Every structure is written in C-alpha cells, then in structure tokens.
C-alpha cells in the first residue's frame, strides 16, 4: 500500500467520522444529565435538510450550519416538553421524534432533491499539513472537522473541569439529591436536551452541506442511531466517543476503497454498505456483555423520569 492511498483512506475516514463525533458528543452530554433521547436520527435529518435549504438560498454554508443547529434544537424541544414537562416515557418520545423528524425532513426536502451545492473548500493548516502521509489527511480538512476537535475538548473540559459540568453529572446520577441541594433539575435537563439537539442538527448539516453536498430522502442513513450506539460503546466517555467515531468512519469508507482499488473481490456493493450496521451490532454485543462495566459507567438516572415536587 503506498502512502497516497493511506493518506486518502485516512482523509475519508476523518470526514466520515466527523458527523458521528459531533452528534455523539451532543448525545453524551444529553445522557450525562440522565435523559435518553432516541430521536437523534430525526434531529440529524432535520438539521441536514434545513442546513441544505438555507445554504442553497443564501450561498453561505456557515449560515446553513447555524440554521441546522437551530432546527435540531427546535425539534429536540418537542422531546423535552414531552419528557420533562409532561413526564412522558423517554423511549416512546424519542421514537416519536425519530419518526417525526425523518418524515418532516422528507417533506421539507422534496423541492431540494436533485440540486447540488458547491463543495466547501478545505482549510489547509500551514506547516503541519506538510507532514508526510498524515498531514494531508488531518490538516487539510473541512473547517468543520477542526470544529469537531474543538467541540471534543470543550465537552471534555465542561464535563470534568467545570462546575456546571459537575452539576450536570450530579443530576444524571441522582436528580433527587441535586434537587434537594437547590439545583434546577428540569431547567438543566432542558439545556442538555437542547445541546444534544443542536449538535445532532450540526452533525446532520455536516452530512448534507459539507460531506455529500446534496439532499435526498434518507440521507442521514442511520447515522443518528449509530451515534447512540457509539455513546454506549464509549461507556459515556468523550475520548472513546472520538476513537469510536473514527473506527466507524473507517468501516463506512471501506466500500469506497474496495470498489476503487481495482481489487478483484466479488462482493456485492450492498454487502459492503451493510458493514457499518453489522459493526454497530458487534460493538454493542462486545460492550454490553460486560454488564458491570455498563452499570458502573452509565448515568444512574438515565431514561428515568423525574418530577421535583411529586
């Protein structure tokens, strides 16, 4: 394997992993506050379609990305209202959001199918992008890729170094104790849900505006669900989310390289396309079989409704 091919594979892996990192980090913060939002597929789809439409009309991909974040946050608010204010079941409400978001994105996006956006040029970081092999792969990327790294450090700092992060985690572990020492549990959970929605929206925006740049129904293709699995795989730790996202990115681009490499492998394309989904299942099995590790690391109140004065 020559250096150019390795560079190209690493480059594509980083790109494919980026929407997963952004979305999964948002979900991680969401779940650290004890709220399980299964609607990430719908939030990503909404982010993707709104970002695409705004970019198409304004010509500015960053305006599009911002609009995608707002769209993700807006639909996450529906989930928040149901589960936090009305005490509805989190699993059912998340599923409702997934179905609703995917449906609404297909509806909004119909007029935008078969339109292509201008590709957003990469941003070359001086000097370090000249490092052989990895320089081109990591430091001549979309600005959004660098943003995902900033986001990673931001989430890490917030959760483990800031007081607000400590409060958030304490609410995820024991909302009743957090409430009794005076923290506004519901308000903070609302913020966590909004953050998860905004990040999923941004992840979706990356897919439709920076990655493919186009829109078709079903564009998100399960990335929202994979991001949920990624958080379990990472046992709720940011660094593992990052590593896991790139592993999945690698699996996702594998088919491109088998097809493009000229290797005479007689695999149907559909088989290779199904690899990320099988990989998700395998990863879930490997992680979940260790019951004590899941119990130890998952936020104790995850998925359980809490009402302060009940």
């Amino acid at each position, binding site marked *: 394997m020559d250096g150019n091919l390795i560079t190209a594979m690493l480059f594509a892996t980083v790109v494919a992993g980026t929407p997963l990192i952004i979305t999964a980090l948002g979900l991680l913060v969401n779940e650290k506050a004890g709220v399980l939002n299964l609607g990430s597929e719908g939030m990503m789809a909404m982010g993707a379609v709104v970002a695409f439409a705004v970019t198409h009309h304004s010509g500015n991909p960053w305006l599009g990305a911002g609009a995608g974040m707002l769209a993700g946050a807006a639909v996450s608010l529906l989930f928040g209202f149901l589960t936090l204010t*009305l005490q509805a079941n989190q699993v059912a409400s998340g*599923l409702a959001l997934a179905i609703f978001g*995917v*449906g609404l994105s*297909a509806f909004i996006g119909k007029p935008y199918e078969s339109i292509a956006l201008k590709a957003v040029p990469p941003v070359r970081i001086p000097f370090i992008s000249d490092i052989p092999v990895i320089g081109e792969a990591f430091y001549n990327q979309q600005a959004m890729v660098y943003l995902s790294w900033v986001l990673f450090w931001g989430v890490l700092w917030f959760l483990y170094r800031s007081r607000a992060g400590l409060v958030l985690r304490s609410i995820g572990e024991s909302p009743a104790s957090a409430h009794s020492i005076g923290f506004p549990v519901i308000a903070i959970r609302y913020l966590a849900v909004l953050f998860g929605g905004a990040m999923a929206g941004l992840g979706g925006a990356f897919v439709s505006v920076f990655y493919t740049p186009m829109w078709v129904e079903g564009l998100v293709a399960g990335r929202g669900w994979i991001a949920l*699995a990624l958080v379990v795989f990472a046992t709720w730790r940011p660094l593992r989310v990052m590593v896991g996202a790139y592993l999945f990115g690698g699996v996702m681009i594998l088919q491109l390289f088998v097809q493009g490499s000229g290797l005479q492998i007689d695999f149907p394309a559909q088989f290779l396309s*199904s690899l990320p989904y099988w990989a998700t299942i395998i990863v879930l099995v490997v992680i979940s079989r260790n019951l004590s590790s*899941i119990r130890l690391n998952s936020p104790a109140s995850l998925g359980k409704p809490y009402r302060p004065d009940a």
Partner: protein
Amino acid sequence: MPELPLRLEARAEPSRWMPYLSPLLAVMLMLLAGVLVFWALGKDPAEGFRLFFLNPVKDAYGVSELLLKATPLMLCATGLAIGFRANVWNIGAEGQFILGAVGATGVALYFQGSESRLLLPAMVVGGALAGAAWASIPAFLKTRFNANEILVSLMLVYVAQLLVSWLVFGPWKDPDGFNFPQTRMFDDAALLPILVDGTRLNQSLLIALAVLIAGYVFMYRSYTGFKMRVAGEAADAARYAGFSANRMVWIGLLCGGGAAGLAGMAEVAGPMGQLTDKVSLGYGFAAIIVAFVGRLNPLGILFASLLMALLFLGGEQVQQYMNLPSSISMVFQGMLLFFLLGADVFINYRLVIGRRGA
C-alpha cells in the same frame, strides 16, 4: 421561571378513563394541527382537510383500499404490542416485514410454474419464518449478551433494505424486466385470492383479523400473556414471581417478527405481485405508532390501523391533487404519536387552574 396560572397536580390514582380518552384527544389535536399545516402551506385548509381525511374513503373502492392498507399495519402492530407489553422494544418491524417479503418471494420463485394449492400456505410459512428469524437476531443478542434490542433490531432494518436491494438488482432480477430493480411477476397460484371483486382487497385481511383475535387470546386469556403483562407493568413483581425475563424477550421478538413477516408476505403476494426494492412504505415504523395509539390492545389496534391507513391514503391524495409530497403522511403520523404521548399526561395528572396554594 414565572409560574403559570395552570399546573399539573398528581392524581391520587391513575385515571380510569384517560387511557381510552387520550387517543381520541390525540386524534382531534392531529386533525386540528392538520388544518393548521394546510393553512401554513398556503393551501385552502377546508379543501386540504377534505382531500386528506375524507376523500380517500368517499366510495366503496376507497374503503377497500383503506382496509388493504390497514392490513399490514394491523399485523405488524399486533406482533409489536405483545413485546411492548413486556417492555421488549422491537423497533425493527420494518426489517422483519422486508424479510417476510423476501422469504415468501423465495418460495414463490423456487416453485415457479407450480399450480399447487399448497404454494400459498408455503409462502405464508416462509414469510412468517423469515420475519421471525430476522427478529431472533436481536432476541439472541439481548438474552445472551444483553445487547440493546432497540439498536440491534433497528440496525437490521438497514441491513434488510440492502439485502432486498441486492436481490432485486442481482440474482432475483426479472430477466425480462428492462433492468428495473424487481423480480418477475408471481404466478396466479402465488397470489392471494381477491376478497371482493373489482377491488384489490385480498384474503390477507382475514389472516390479519385472525392474528388480531389470536393476539387477544394470547394477551388476555393465556398464562404466558398474563406473565408478560405483569412483567411490563411491575417488573419487580415479575422477578419475585420467578417469571423468566429471557423467555419474554424471545416471545416478544418472535411474535413481532413473525407477524411482520406475514405482513411482508401479504404485500408481495397481494397488491404488489412481485418483490421490488421499495417493498415497504414504512409500514413497520408506522405500526409502532399504531400499537401505541391502539393502547397495545387488539381492538384498539384495529381502529388505530384504520386511522393510520387513512393517513397513508390522504398523503397520496394531497400529492395527486395539491402537489404536496406524500411524505406529509409521515409528518401527520409523527404528530399523532406526539399528541398521544402528551395527552397521556392526564392519566396520572390533572390540570389545575390557579397558583399553588391559591
């Protein structure tokens, strides 16, 4: 936060009537929201309402189409409800539906040219077994490795879509089909007989009604069904009583997969008459909503599946006459579930006017 003069107060006991009233409330809210959606889209709300909710069933043929669309929903939702009652979250009915279609098509293509009366029963068995086999993957991984059945069953939906795409673009492609991604049309012996002449309504409706009744008997008249209800409503009590949680996972997923597989069989051996890469219009996902709106109860599922079928047909109508994408159906379906979950708050809480302590 400023306190609103409205607040929720916990009921001493869950309301007895709200579980049945809240689906009706949700439907009314959805109809209201529907009018608002048409208004917001700049369409005549009254015309939109008429086209979407009334036009599909304006004549006998329309009603037959409604029953035809409701059939796969009824089947999938009954199977799902059995699992949901025991908190077994099978979200992959869409994939199990597709596998059922694939299994039945496999039988039909293998016995191509056969005129045996046993062909259809063999396809029914093939479809149900294929759907159940697909659901057995999350069941095995859940019981053996504790892997989350929501995510596993959902991932398998994407795999099933790719599998059917491979089949109809590859080995099963109709050699005379001008390269369209579809199998050849089934022989007459592999098609479900039409129930009412002049319509597309076929015998799968009878199968679905039989499954509904069987589901009712299982849920309310069998010991296993009782145990599964206990497990769903009071997990600790079920554990103390020594009910096997693993067995419930298996039963829940196999029932869901088998019923969804039957629905997939009915689709290829019914209105489609062949397998294509667009075999499901999202029936497996819509059935989740049907199961919830029907309160996980077979009679409720009967009504809910008719309602959801209407939403599918209404989407086709407004696409044809108002030039709106048919995916508007999914928007309404999602809204219906939102409204239901919201309305359910009144089962355990009541709305009180006035500030606390006032």
